[in-house]
């Protein structure tokens, strides 16, 4: 195998790693939020909504972390990966 081919393959693998890393950012953030919810379930006031004020119901940190992951994964990451793959070609 020629040196040029090996170099190209290594470069392609590195680039695809970048795409995978971008794709993983959203799910990893969601996973972090879910793990936090299991570690501190009392932070999810939806599980016990009685006698909770508006802000305790509206702002639930583990859910906010999951929401950030969802927003990033749905609205930002796909376009970035698409543009990265176009650049690679």
């Amino acid at each position, binding site marked *: 195998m020629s040196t040029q081919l090996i170099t190209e393959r290594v470069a392609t693998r590195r680039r695809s790693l970048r795409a995978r890393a971008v794709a993983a950012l959203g799910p990893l*953030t969601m996973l972090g939020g879910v793990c936090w919810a299991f570690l501190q379930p009392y932070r999810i006031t939806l599980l016990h909504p009685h006698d909770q004020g508006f*802000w305790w119901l*509206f702002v639930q940190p583990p859910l906010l972390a999951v*929401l950030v992951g969802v927003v990033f994964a749905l609205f930002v990451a796909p376009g970035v990966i698409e543009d990265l793959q176009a650049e690679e070609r």
Partner: protein
Amino acid sequence: MEPPAEHVHWLFATGFLLLGLCLLARALVGEDVWSRRPWRAYLWPSLLFLMGVLMWPVMVFYTNSMIHMVAHGAWAQTMMLAGAAELGLVRGKLHNVAWRLAMPLALVVSGVAILVHEQNGWLFSRAAFLHHVIGWTALIGALFPLIGAFRRRSPVWSSGFAITFVVIAVFLYSDRDVAPIFGHLSPLAGEQHR
């Protein structure tokens, strides 16, 4: 009707987390790919500017002393300045490399303000500890955009810059109005919340 202070910290943590993820993706793919779609190029500076704007109501409604008001006002101004400078650079209205120093300036001013306005020691309460640790994180984190301003292509500095915001988000999510830190809680801090 105002949210407790810890809720405000969590909302800002959410903004910083989204900002950090965008910057991390930008660091991974490079500025050229990130800026292929114009809306995406404007995304993180706009988010930073918006967070600066939203800091003003925090300054008005949550400051109980002059030093708190000055600190929050300084954050609001420098976050808006950094966001606006980056918007100007992305739009092509600003060209001088010195405008890229607005971001490290914002982090240095924020770091100093947060350290100066925390009057209690590290182990007074969790909030006091987080003020100290966020202040130092911002100060040290300022090195990344400072060096990155002159070494634009290096992923190390842009990744470090992005991770700074993710770390600040984690610290802000850890904030509680009155809670112990490593088992320490000063009796002067008040009654512990949940």
